[in-house]
């Protein structure tokens, strides 16, 4: 618990309505989309950059740890509170400050939900390409902190590619603007790129200038059904080799076809080994050729059934199945663990094999969902978290999958981040030198480990340790 003095001062900064310090209220902010949780000692909802800056300055003074939070859809524990920490929840800072379609930019506060921005942009005939599966809930600040991807990355890239500038409250409380509305506005170093994906460990991003694009004039959405996962993965290889750049190449395996169909009721063939959702966009005059070519390539790799959505409704149904598939596994088991391993596209079949091997070895059902064009897998390991032996097996399976991806020349995280969940595996992917550089970067920004400490890497905080002891009643830090 925070001392009354601290509570009063925090309440003075953000306003009495924008602070929660009761246990029940706080528990609601102590989780994310992982299985971990921890109750914070307070939650504040800043209304402005000035509020955030004042919070950070005060936290500095008394040695309080601050943890940023958007919507809590995080998949690696990056927004989880630590013992004795105060959560800074950005949900009140959700204004769109400017949409400037003719200069291809939008300026937003970072608590804005991705989908809410998309809806506004739609009115201008524009969109913001990164749209992670969580986009109806997740905030742009969270997307920036994790460098979120989504299903359109193969053609359009990830969050990093759409951030032109940021306003950041540094761990000192000072506010800086980096980048700008235009390209080439960085000073000395491209700090914007360092903040994107830094999981709130280097500073709190309060505003962002995003690059937005005109909506493509036309789209075609296709559904390809296969008897075997291998056939689907051959199609992906053929399509890429033919020089086609689809926006989307999403794959689901048999298990997920079944749970998705139970959930959405599309009438998918339940005995199919895999399906691909393929989407191309561009000018209408080109797309029929593209679809024809893709169909030929899919046939070459033994597609069982190939359909082109004939209406927006049909396409939307397919996307609904894809976007809700993760939740749909709840019908099969009470818990799931979602992985994020990514391998070079050519190693796709080997990674599928490795996942199936894990499933067998640890006797756990694993559904395979993949952004196949990117080699980015989201294996869903199904289990029951009330059974400790299952949980232990899940963790072992996770490590096996991470190792398999790294052995295949990939990475343990394509778009979910490291947070606390994968911190212990960092040494499998990076040399001591690289990890030491991460620490040096953290120290350059946040030497006292004030902001979201213990995420990505640990550093020994300088000086403030003594102060921290006096902040929280009866809590040793």
């Amino acid at each position: 618990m925070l001392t009354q003095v601290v509570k009063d001062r925090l309440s003075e900064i953000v306003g009495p309505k924008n602070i929660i310090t009761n246990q029940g209220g706080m528990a609601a902010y102590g989780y994310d989309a992982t299985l971990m949780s921890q109750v914070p000692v307070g939650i504040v909802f800043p209304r402005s950059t000035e509020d955030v800056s004042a919070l950070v300055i005060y936290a500095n003074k008394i040695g309080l740890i601050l943890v940023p939070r958007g919507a809590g859809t995080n998949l690696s524990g990056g927004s989880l509170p630590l013992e004795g920490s105060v959560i800074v929840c950005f949900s009140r800072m959700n204004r769109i400050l400017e949409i400037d379609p003719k200069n291809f930019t939008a300026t937003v506060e970072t608590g804005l939900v991705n989908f809410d921005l998309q809806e506004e942009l739609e009115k201008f005939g524009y969109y913001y390409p990164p749209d992670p599966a969580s986009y109806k809930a997740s905030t742009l600040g969270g997307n920036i902190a994790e460098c979120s991807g989504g299903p359109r990355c193969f053609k359009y890239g990830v969050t990093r590619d759409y951030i032109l500038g940021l306003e950041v409250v540094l761990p000192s409380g000072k506010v800086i603007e980096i980048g700008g509305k235009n390209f080439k506005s960085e000073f000395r170093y491209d700090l914007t790129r360092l903040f994107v994906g830094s999981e709130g460990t280097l500073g709190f991003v309060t505003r962002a200038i995003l690059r937005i694009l005109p909506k493509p004039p036309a789209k075609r959405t296709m559904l390809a059904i296969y008897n075997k996962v291998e056939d689907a993965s051959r199609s992906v290889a053929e399509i890429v080799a033919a020089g086609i750049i689809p926006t989307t190449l999403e794959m689901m395996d048999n298990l997920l076809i079944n749970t998705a169909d139970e959930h959405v009721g599309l009438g998918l063939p339940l005995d199919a080994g895999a399906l691909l959702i393929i989407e191309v966009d561009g000018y209408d005059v080109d797309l029929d050729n593209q679809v024809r070519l893709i169909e030929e390539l899919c046939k070459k790799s033994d597609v069982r059934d190939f359909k082109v959505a004939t209406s927006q409704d049909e396409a939307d149904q397919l996307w609904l199945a894809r976007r809700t598939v993760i939740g749909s596994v709840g019908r099969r088991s009470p818990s799931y663990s979602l992985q994020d391993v990514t391998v070079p596209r050519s190693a796709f079949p080997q990674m599928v094999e490795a996942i199936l091997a894990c499933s067998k070895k640890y006797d756990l059902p694993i559904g395979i969902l993949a952004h196949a064009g990117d080699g980015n897998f989201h294996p869903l390991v199904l289990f029951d978290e009330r059974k400790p032996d299952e949980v232990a097996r899940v963790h072992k399976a996770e490590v096996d999958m991470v190792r398999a991806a790294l052995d295949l020349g990939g990475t343990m995280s394509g778009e979910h981040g490291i947070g606390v969940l994968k911190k212990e595996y960092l040494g499998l992917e990076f040399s001591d030198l690289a990890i030491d550089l991460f620490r040096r970067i953290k120290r350059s920004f946040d030497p006292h480990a004030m902001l979201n400490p213990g995420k990505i890497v640990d550093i020994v905080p300088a000086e403030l340790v003594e102060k921290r002891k006096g902040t929280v009643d009866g809590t040793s830090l």
Partner: protein
Amino acid sequence: MQDAILKKLRSTVGDDNLVVQQDLMEEFLSGPELPSAVIFPGGTKEVSEIISLCNELDVRIGVGGHTVNTRGLDGGLAMVMSRMNRVLDIDHENLVAEVEAGTSHTAFQNKIAGEGLYFPPEPFKGSDSSIGACISSGDLDSMAFQYGPPRAYVLGFDMVLPTGEILNCGSKVIKNVSGYDLIHFVVGSRGTLGVITRVLLKLLPLPETRRSILGSFSSIEKAASVMGKLLDQKIYPARLNLLNAPVAAQLNLESRQIVPGHLVLVDLEGLRNSTIRLSEEVASLFRLEKAADVIMLDEDEALDNLGSQWLKLKEKYHGDVHERAIDFLVGPDHAPQALNQLEKLVEDLDSRSGLMVYALNGNIRVFPSEVHEMTVLVQEINRLALSLGGNIAGDLGYRLKCEALKEKDMWLEMVALTDEIRNQFDPNGILAPGVNQ
């Protein structure tokens, strides 16, 4: 530099790969100061040994692809990467190439084009420079609206840190958020954080169809308004540039010379049907807007010639070579308005001073003739850019913006922060001493 150091360096790279005679060094140096030697490493390990030694003995090092800027390098070491010029792997399945940093940018592009692949960023220095220079500068070219900046093509690298340690980052995956994003942060750091020796590059398939349309217009205002109309019609080409008459006159088209004037240059790259249709729309708009001349190029030879002519122009006007350049950005929508105002500040803009506009980046580059006082003009253009929500490019622009907005604290904070990052990588300050001095 002591003989003992030179001896050690020589033993690392071999006698032939260390040059100490001033007349022989000149070819590899630019700038006023004089290093003690020019060294040509043959691999990452050699680079690491050289830098370790320099770090230990406090010898400053500057690095270049073919030539090294000698600023801050008096008595130090110039490292030229030209021996490290191998394309190690072209991986069609993953659309990735692995190249050594000294590889010639255009040679690499030509090589992969032969295999149907494309690396869109243009060489940093116009007609040619190294892949390492492209990444080290991170410079945006006029096709960035469609293809993104060089950073978008960097998937990983080996980099020798200023301490001599070898950092390996990234892999053949296009999505990677593991750890802090050193992979992309390093792009554009101008060689201050380490020496990249090997790099994994993302490739694209070659576009199915290319076309270029050139329109010659009687005034800059007219040319600018035509560009605005293209955007209003939702035509976003791969390249949409304006070259004023003095610059355009230097383009030497093999097909036939275009009637002199201010030139709008449109490149389209994409799928066949839409590219052809768009090229016709562009050409008819040019005619409708009373272009003095319109040329459409659709054959490879003519397009390649135009491409190399464009790079030659860039070489003359760009990079660190042109001393009288002011580079600013206002966004695509404000570019026509900015040009109108610019013509009032630079009265000979349609006859003597040079002008290049990258319309889709909203980027205007002006090369004022000798009659203009540069320091005054920079301030005036800064005001002009700020009034349109833009800024002068890069470090200078950031400083001027902070000055104009009376944000001295922010400026000082950024200086301290970036100094600290550099210090964390290069505690002894040996690398790229000419940058940020």
